[in-house]
């Protein structure tokens, strides 16, 4: 798939933002007044900033409200609902903390659940996509949720939780990559199944594409990334996203280290998200002879 910058920014930032909201919702940390304001401002900037950037790749952003109508079947529509509900509930809860010094904990717990629900709906947009075998697994949801929780813990200053969740997320990430590398093969989609022409042991080869030029399908779905390139990026994602933050958290506490840990984590996750799209093989590439399978 073509890694669209707006979608990478969206999934990375809003994942972190909703992760932070979830921790704030359950009262870890319990903050009031100005420090609550600071925490909520960061969370909303990330979550809302991500959501806004996601509308940049729409052909008609002015009709975006219509996306709330099809929650019965569409995960994208469900995501829209979950995001708005989470932001409203957490907004009320945050207002209580900031302006009234009150912690309405039931509201916080509901908001936390909605925040994680939003991350889950995002993950399901990809996780249910059968045409991209690398994404079509419950591990995709596990990956998005653990990343969001780990990043949220980091932002919320929950050091001991972050020290557990970051390694857990790293393991899920590695498992997701490992499974993904054989997913297209396992999916059973091949040039033979795509064309039905491999009868009685015949061998099919893509001879000519439909047009000499490129097209929307090739631009959007047939992005091919070099294997060496991908391996390096995976190491960068692991190193910056998980290893460095954990090391920094283990060092004696300082605000500078904390900040560096967060920045490093964000860059690492952005690299992982870039790979999430760049490495994803859409089966339509088979028709163009652009997939090994």
């Amino acid at each position: 798939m073509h890694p669209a910058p707006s979608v990478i920014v969206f999934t990375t930032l809003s994942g972190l933002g909703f992760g932070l909201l979830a921790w704030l919702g359950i009262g870890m940390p319990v903050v009031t007044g100005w420090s609550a304001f600071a925490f909520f401002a960061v969370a909303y900037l990330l979550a809302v900033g991500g959501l806004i950037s996601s509308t940049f790749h729409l052909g008609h952003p002015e009709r975006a409200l219509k996306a709330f109508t099809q929650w019965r079947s569409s995960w994208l529509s469900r995501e829209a609902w979950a995001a708005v509900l989470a932001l409203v509930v957490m907004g009320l809860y945050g207002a209580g903390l900031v302006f009234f010094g009150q912690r309405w904990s039931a509201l916080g717990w509901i908001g936390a659940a909605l925040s994680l629900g939003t991350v889950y709906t995002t993950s399901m947009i990809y996780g249910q996509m059968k045409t991209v075998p690398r994404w079509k697994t419950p591990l995709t949801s596990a990956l998005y949720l653990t990343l969001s929780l780990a990043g949220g813990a980091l932002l919320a200053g929950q050091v001991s939780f972050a020290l557990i969740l970051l390694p857990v997320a790293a393991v899920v990430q590695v498992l997701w990559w490992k499974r993904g590398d054989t997913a297209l093969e396992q999916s059973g989609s091949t040039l033979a199944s795509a064309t039905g022409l491999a009868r009685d042991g015949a061998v099919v080869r893509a001879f000519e594409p439909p047009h000499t030029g490129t097209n929307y399908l090739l631009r959007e779905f047939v992005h091919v990334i070099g294997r060496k390139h991908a391996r390096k990026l995976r190491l960068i994602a692991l190193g910056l996203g998980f290893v460095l933050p954990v090391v920094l958290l283990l060092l004696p506490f300082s605000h500078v280290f904390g900040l560096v840990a967060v920045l490093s984590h964000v860059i690492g996750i952005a690299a992982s998200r870039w790979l999430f799209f760049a490495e994803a093989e859409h089966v339509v590439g088979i028709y163009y002879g652009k997939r090994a399978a």
Partner: protein
Amino acid sequence: MTTLPTSTKKKLGLVIDLDTCVGCHACVISCKGWNTENYGAPLSDQDPYGGDPSGTFLNRVHSYEVQPLATSAMPHPAAQLVHFPKSCLHCEDAPCVTVCPTGASYKRVEDGIVLVNESDCIGCGLCAWACPYGAREMDAEEGVMKKCTLCVDRIYNENLPEVDREPVCVRTCPAGARHFGDFADPDSNVSRLTAERSGMDLMPEQGTKPVNQYLPPRPKDTLDQIDVLAPFLEPVMQESNGFLGWLDRTLEKI
């Protein structure tokens, strides 16, 4: 509404005969012609006469080389070139419809045609992601999703002569490789063709239950050497004479 109908009254679709398609792309051009002028946004081209042309098409013809397996009877079978037109297959379990967040994509209950209501489409592209066949293309000019409508504005169009009330690709095909009809009716032309010629689903493992069916190429005939005319084709004049003969002999000597 992007939930799928549990069943449709008709199942309109195409049979595409890979045995007779000659890969002329006439269906591609007539499709672009009809659909750029009729229902919905035109099918735009980008840089059409420049160095990097591209554009929106609802029907594209791929070409595949098929190398049959060598057998003792046929140790060196010739490779076959198969032309492969591909457009929306109007799937029964259309994944492109259920992912659509706005309800712009839908499958019609009356005839099973999968359509996009362009004034509701936000251009998120998700439906094109969900289609395994590459049958949906986002128009770069309009920012809305375009796809085959099965020429819904022709097949019921009383302003057209009866003979033209079929998809324009079918009407145009010079090889008779495209057939249009109702798959819900077991006696229709398309149902019979599918049964007789073992029509097949593309990518059945994707579970989309495509309505359009593809007829596999038949084995090529092996003709005996036909040489009833060969005796008459023996060269008559072995040696030239006259001026040309002299010229020939003289030039030979130089």
